[in-house]
């Protein structure tokens, strides 16, 4: 299962969930109908003349559906903001990226390394300060609005390897699209919960009414019983909801554990964390009131239930450790790494044959949505190798803003003076000061690291207020247009920044998937591949052909090589917009083609990489470090 097909699959799993949900609603509806029929039929004067009273059924259904859908829509709407909304619902405190606290700093480092290695935006980080136990969660709809939260106990009790194991587990939830399903589940549970809640309110108000009018109305008794019945039906509905919840969740936990080991190549880390949970006096259950509703989000069990085997959202800890242990001893781990080494050697020998740096499109494609331990250590090295002032700047909003401005300075004295004048005019002397002092450090950074650095700066940029963001945005485009032309680097930087920050500031929802057929996107894909192919070091025609060969379509005529002058940034923007609305399978074919076009001549140059980074960011596809 690769990243794209799991993303597609979760969408279909969500459909299945909705199906179960509808069945549950119908069952609830019918039981409420009978309760109403019996209670009001018996209590009222009409008596039960028939089991089928259409008017009553329509009325009951209408009310039930209205209540459940209000509850569900309300919750889903509330969580539309993605991971951070869930984290805040749980009482999470957002970790400031510039934190000086040792534990928080370590958490930030671990998460950043993993994000760079995997090529996804750094998720928002939250700490649950009131929870001394070891637990963690991931939430959100897509990679761009993801949030990862850990309890205070996790930060304090685990060592770096164990923390890395836990975070890797959460990252695998992000890649597997588990978060999307989880949020849907929360909505479903809330709809049913509302029935239960209404029951208790009706029961109480019935009881009050009875006290007030001292049994004047015979119906009062009926209302109380009706309330109790709703309460019970709601409760039974909740039980079914919980069973769905735990069934969906449990299997995913094993998968996430296995993935975490695969990412870090260090089963001891995760196993150590699980051992500590098993051994700790503080059970991993949470104090927060939302713990039960959101239990399927967590790293380990967040609430206790008498019927653990039925309702547990997580497999028992010892089972999980056991599963890890067998994964550990299994020879296939060694075999896999051996075969990987072999394939690496092969590429290496090709390398030396041609004497260029070659990249393997198949390997990169397979690496999307996973993390490789080598990339992980490479990411660690990049981060550690940054000059201290740059590292500081990345982690706080003014610095992050200034760092991006500094990257856009032209280098030609005349234009640059203008640009700095602009910065001062629009953002004040504070920003100007920071830009000037960052400028000198920036020259020490390898050009190909700049875009990954932009991606780590995103969380700090999110801390700006809306007004500050507005200013930042317009200054950014002023600086880009200062010399009257837009370079590829400038385009890529702006694309990444605006795409990632749109979620926060303009509340733009995730695009609906409307394209499932590659041929319909012939024009768009032709344009995007052509744009990349023109930047090749070799022959553009050949790069184009290499890319088109890989597309799984019969009608290759739909795809035509477009000349460079027509590959304008505006056209590319539009094409990306359309491609963003397509299924994972199409995105995968596109990226595959793009990577083949780059690899065709055996050299991946900076411009090609900037194109593909910008495009991958715009269609929400992770792109691992290369």
């Amino acid at each position: 299962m690769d990243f794209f097909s799991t993303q597609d699959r979760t969408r279909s799993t969500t459909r299945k969930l909705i199906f179960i949900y509808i069945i549950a609603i119908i069952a609830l509806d019918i039981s409420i109908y009978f309760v109403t029929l019996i209670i009001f039929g018996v209590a009222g004067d009409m008596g039960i003349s028939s089991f089928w009273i259409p008017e009553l059924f329509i009325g009951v259904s209408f009310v039930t559906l209205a209540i459940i859908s209000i509850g569900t829509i309300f919750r889903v709407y509330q969580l539309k903001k993605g991971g951070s909304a869930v984290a805040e619902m749980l009482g999470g405190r957002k970790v400031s990226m510039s934190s000086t606290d040792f534990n928080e700093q370590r958490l930030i480092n671990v998460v950043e390394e993993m994000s760079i290695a995997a090529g996804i935006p750094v998720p928002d980080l939250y700490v649950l300060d009131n929870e001394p136990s070891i637990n963690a969660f991931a939430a959100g709809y897509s990679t761009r609005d993801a949030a990862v939260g850990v309890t205070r106990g996790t930060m304090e009790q685990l060592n770096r390897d164990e923390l890395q194991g836990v975070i890797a587990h959460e990252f695998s939830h992000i890649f597997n699209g588990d978060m999307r399903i989880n949020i849907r589940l929360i909505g479903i549970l809330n709809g049913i919960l509302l029935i239960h809640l209404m029951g208790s309110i009706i029961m109480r108000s019935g009881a009050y009414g009875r006290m007030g009018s001292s049994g004047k109305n015979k119906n009062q008794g009926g209302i109380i019983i009706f309330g109790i019945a709703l309460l019970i039906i709601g409760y039974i509905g909740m039980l079914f909801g919980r069973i769905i919840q735990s069934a969906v969740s449990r299997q995913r936990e094993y998968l996430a554990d296995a993935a975490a080991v695969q990412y870090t190549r260090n089963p001891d880390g995760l196993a150590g964390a699980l051992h500590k949970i098993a051994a700790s006096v503080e059970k991993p259950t949470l104090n927060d009131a939302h713990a039960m509703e959101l239990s399927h989000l967590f790293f380990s069990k967040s609430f206790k239930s008498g019927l653990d085997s039925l309702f547990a959202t997580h497999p028992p800890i010892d089972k999980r450790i056991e599963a890890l242990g067998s994964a550990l001893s299994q020879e296939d781990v060694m075999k896999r790494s051996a075969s990987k080494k072999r394939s690496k050697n092969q590429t290496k020998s090709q390398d030396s044959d041609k004497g260029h740096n070659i990249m393997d499109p198949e390997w990169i494609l397979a690496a999307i949505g996973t993390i490789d331990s080598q990339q992980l250590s490479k990411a660690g090295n990049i981060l550690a190798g940054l000059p201290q002032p740059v590292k500081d700047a990345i982690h706080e909003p003014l610095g992050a803003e200034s760092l991006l401005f500094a990257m856009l300075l032209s280098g030609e004295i005349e234009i640059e003076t203008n640009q700095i004048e602009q910065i001062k005019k629009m953002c004040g002397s504070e920003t100007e000061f920071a830009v000037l002092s960052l400028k000198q450090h920036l020259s020490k950074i390898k050009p190909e690291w700049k875009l990954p650095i932009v991606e780590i700066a995103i969380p700090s940029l999110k801390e700006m207020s809306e007004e500050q963001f507005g200013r930042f945005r317009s200054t950014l485009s002023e600086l880009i247009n200062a010399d009257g032309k837009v370079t590829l680097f400038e385009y890529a930087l702006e694309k990444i920044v605006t795409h990632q920050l749109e979620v926060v500031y303009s509340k733009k929802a995730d695009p609906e998937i409307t394209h499932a057929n590659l041929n319909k996107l012939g024009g768009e894909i032709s344009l995007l591949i052509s744009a990349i192919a023109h930047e090749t070091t070799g022959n553009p025609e050949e790069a184009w052909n290499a890319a088109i060969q890989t597309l799984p379509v019969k009608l290759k005529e739909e795809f035509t090589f477009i000349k460079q002058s027509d590959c304008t940034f505006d056209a590319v923007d539009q094409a990306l917009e359309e491609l963003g609305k397509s299924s994972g399978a199409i995105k995968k074919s596109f990226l595959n083609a793009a990577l083949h076009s780059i690899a065709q001549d055996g050299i991946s140059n900076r411009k090609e990489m900037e194109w593909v980074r910008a495009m991958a960011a715009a269609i929400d596809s992770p792109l691992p470090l290369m």
Partner: protein
Amino acid sequence: MTFTIILLVILAILIIWPVSIYNKLVALRNRFKNGFSQIDVQLKRRYDLIPNLIETAKAYMKHERETLEAVITARNQAQQVEKSVADNPADPAAIQKLAGSEQALSGALGKFFALSESYPDLKANQNMMQLTEELTSTENKISFARQAFNDAVMNYNTAREKFPNVLFANIFGFSAASQFQLESPDVERQAPKVSF
């Protein structure tokens, strides 16, 4: 029957409505609280820098003990206040107090920098140059973070006072929050403007 239906639907809305207002206000309050933690980190950094600065200056400014001590006192006081505010940035009185103590600290620092002008040796000191540069950039970060915090407070206060939110805000215990204003930005900017 129709009556019951209407009653139930109204009931459902009556549950949902206040809850959604509550949630919205919580989200906005969280946002400005996060905003304060951003200021907080930089304030702490500033408090850490100041003793080093004074320590370096001591060797040169032997006759200005009073000024140096005034800076340290103001710094200690501001640090005290900051600790109490960090626990609850939603308390307007605490924020006002912090603004006051920060103002005093900036004033003392401004005086210190003005005096240091007449000590060329101190100005040429490598350590001093570096510390001043760092202090300047920290103060810039504070003012940027403060702006974000103030914007977030304003959004929260506006949402709180809007109808119908205002009906529920007090019942749920959402009191008005205060912006973190430093009154005369001239004094505040004086320190960074000193160039060595």
